[in-house]
């Protein structure tokens, strides 16, 4: 067996005028878990798409299992044992979970007919390891983002690949699922299979990987062999940014005023939300925590006017509003940064500039004729502030890297100066630096008197930025924690405790 399962040297790749990879190098020792890390747009996704041949390289050397290889399509790469969990997922919305798991790789019975019985049984077995609660007969289009992510992972594992590439697999996942995934990766390692793990979450990378490759601006900035050199976060950040690391502490809290910008009273939506009441004061950041899929996202969608509430009142800045349509929420001064940016947040084929303009058209005081030049300047400045990496503001959003797309989603809403900003996992798939920039902007909003309701799948984010954290369980607020000296354990404890308490007949409030 070769020392390296994969050797990429001098890889170049261009998209139009944008250089995505410039003499990049990636060596993967066989039988290990290789971390690939880098800022947004540093070329991580591009090189992984070159490995599984959804993209073809422009120049460079590609060795697989010690031999020169050239695959022309993902099918050929799959046949050679390379499988990939895509950042945007490769699931077909109208097919069921089990059909998706076997897509492109269906078990066959005699005569070339599909062996659906076996496929379904095997899928049931496979999902059990990672996401046993998902009904495998459901259409993938009806699943939550985290559930889709898990299905995508199961789908790749089902192929038993020699080399598995995971592009941001943990972004929408909560901790307990990440741990399950990691134990599966360790099993793979013990079997001698290789894995490339791409993530923005530094603790995850240092936890699971034993070799690290850092990308910066389409080049390999350095490698760290964790087994020999140890795990030094500062060194990793230095390699990523090219600057000395600056680890950011919890935020300085501004004193929030007594003015309530958002008041929710007894909100109920279908089976997912039951009698939710909460308050957000001006200048306050309130976090939503709890196990995944307990109604946090439904709460966001309902407040943003996407789904109608059956009961309850919503007051924005003391004024009751009827939320029947997203435009109602926007006019009331409430904006949502949605969790699923591809489906809800962006017009992928339109330019950054156009995307920034659409939001403004929903306002009551939008003039009939907008000044193109001043808009252009505003968008340009915003992209500069957020450090969106793009050839220009007239680049289609679909061409940007995942993290940069997320920045554009947030950028769209900032100029409207909303009274209430609803953030549904805004930092999903965004690198450390961009995350700090993003939350810096959010904090600036609070200084101007806005209230923020934040849901994040990463508890660490909640702890860094929130003033108060509400614990949600089965569609109700079951606990409230003041963020003073809290740590991740406290949140997990409160979530799990509330789950246990709720299993008892009466719903008891858990005091933080």
């Amino acid at each position, binding site marked *: 067996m070769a020392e390296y399962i994969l050797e990429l040297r001098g890889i170049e790749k261009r998209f139009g005028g944008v250089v995505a990879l410039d003499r990049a190098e990636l060596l993967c020792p066989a039988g290990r878990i290789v971390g690939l890390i880098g800022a947004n747009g540093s070329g991580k996704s591009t090189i992984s798409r070159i490995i599984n041949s*959804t993209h073809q390289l422009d120049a460079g050397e590609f060795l697989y299992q010690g031999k020169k290889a050239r695959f022309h*399509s*993902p*099918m050929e790469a*799959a046949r050679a044992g390379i499988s*990939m969990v*895509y950042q945007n*997922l*490769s*699931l*077909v*919305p*109208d*097919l*069921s979970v089990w*059909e*998706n798991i076997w*897509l*492109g*790789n*269906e078990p*066959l019975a005699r005569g*070339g*007919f*599909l062996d659906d019985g076996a496929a*379904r049984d095997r899928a049931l077995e496979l999902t059990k390891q990672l996401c046993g*609660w998902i*009904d*495998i*007969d459901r259409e993938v*289009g*009806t699943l939550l983002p985290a559930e889709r992510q898990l299905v995508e992972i199961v*789908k790749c594992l089902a192929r038993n690949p020699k080399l598995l590439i995971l592009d941001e697999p943990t972004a929408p996942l909560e901790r307990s699922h990440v741990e399950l995934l990691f134990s599966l990766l360790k099993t793979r390692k013990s079997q001698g299979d290789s894995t490339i793990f791409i993530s923005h979450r530094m603790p995850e990378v240092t936890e699971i990987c034993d070799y690290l490759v850092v990308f910066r601006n389409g080049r390999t900035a350095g490698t760290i062999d964790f087994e020999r050199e140890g795990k030094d976060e500062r060194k990793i950040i230095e390699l990523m940014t090219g600057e000395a690391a600056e680890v950011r502490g919890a935020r300085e809290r501004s004193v929030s005023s007594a003015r309530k910008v958002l008041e929710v009273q007894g909100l109920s939506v*279908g*089976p997912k939300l039951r009698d939710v009441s909460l308050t957000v004061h001006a200048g306050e950041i309130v976090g939503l925590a709890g196990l995944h899929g307990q109604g946090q996202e439904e709460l966001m*969608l309902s407040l943003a006017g*996407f*789904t109608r509430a059956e009961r309850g009142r919503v007051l924005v800045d003391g004024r009751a509003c009827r939320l029947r349509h997203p435009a109602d929420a926007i006019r009331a001064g409430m904006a949502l940064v*949605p969790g699923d940016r591809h*489906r*809800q947040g962006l017009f992928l084929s339109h330019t950054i500039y156009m995307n920034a303009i659409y939001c403004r058209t929903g306002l009551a005081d939008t003039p009939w004729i907008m000044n193109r030049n001043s808009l252009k300047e505003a968008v340009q400045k915003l992209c500069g502030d957020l450090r969106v990496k793009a050839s220009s503001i007239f680049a289609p959003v679909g061409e940007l890297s995942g993290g940069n797309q997320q920045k554009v989603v947030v950028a769209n809403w900032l100029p409207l100066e909303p009274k209430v900003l609803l953030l549904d996992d805004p930092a999903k798939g965004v690198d450390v630096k961009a995350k700090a920039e993003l939350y810096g902007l959010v904090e600036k909003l609070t200084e101007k008197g806005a209230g923020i309701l934040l849901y994040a799948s990463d508890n660490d984010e909640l702890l860094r930025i929130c003033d108060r954290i509400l614990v949600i369980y*089965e*569609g109700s607020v079951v606990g409230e924690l003041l963020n003073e000296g809290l740590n991740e354990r406290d949140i997990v404890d409160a979530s799990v405790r509330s789950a246990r308490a709720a299993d008892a007949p009466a719903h008891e409030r858990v005091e933080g």
Partner: protein
Amino acid sequence: MKGARVSRGKGRVPIRDSALFLPLLIFVLIVVVNALVQPGLFRPRIVRSNTASFAPLILVAAGQAIIVLSGSLDLSVGAGMSLINCVFSAMMHESATSSALALLVGLAAALGMGLVNGLAVAYLRLPSLIATFASSAIWFGIALLLRPQPGGFVTPWVSSFYYLSVGPVALPLLILAVGLLGWHLVKRRRLGRYIYAVGSNEEAAYDSGVDASRVKLWAYVLGWAFVFLAAFAVTAQMSSGDAYMGNPFTLNSVAAVVVGGISLAGGKGKVLGAMLGAATLSLVINVIYYANVPSVYQEFVKGSIIIVALTLTILYRRPSRRAVGG
């Protein structure tokens, strides 16, 4: 909440959630209305003659459905039917060999047209709407070349064969059943699954290792096998050749597909639904005729009924989408 997590068991969907529920409901509704205005609708003779005259649209709708499911569209099926019909009328003489040869050439022409459209859409990556609109002009031109004026000779056996009955089962019904059975065999293979996958999300299918272009090409070829059957049925009914004959079938087949509950975006719906949709559209015309609607209003009434059917289909689908997609 807890109950919702319990698996619904072996892949069974409640009947109301089935893609066929609404097309079937609309079909039954129109049958009832038709029976009211036309006593004797269920007499075997009437059923047989209705099946025979509806079969061409039902078949071409099935073909269109396969193409739409794969995420494309074909605006040349009508002109293609004309071309095949003109091939028949130009080649069929008294002798059995000429008839057999005409059938073979017609089939080859059908598959060839499917292949050309498929190559243009799947490999040249032309938008299917425009590519097939252009090719329809070509098919029509060739048909006109073969038969500038309506007429010509088609061996009588084609017609007598078509109106044959095997026991109580009329031959057109048998053709429909065989076509549907063929599609179900395809659906039991990878190709069938891939047609849905590519139609639902081509990029994801490609990323999963599905050769999306080949699947799209095959969808066209399969679809055109049904167009061939449709052309055969229509030739048997008319016993002559006419280059203009197929025109109305193009957009009627698209309407049938939509009334049949298939999403024009692809990936969702059932071929049987499109066949029911085609039967529904045909019955609408029946109803208008027997209800003695003055001829000036016929088109108006037909259009209105189709709009109502479409609205029902789309309204019915919306709520569930909304709850998830927002």
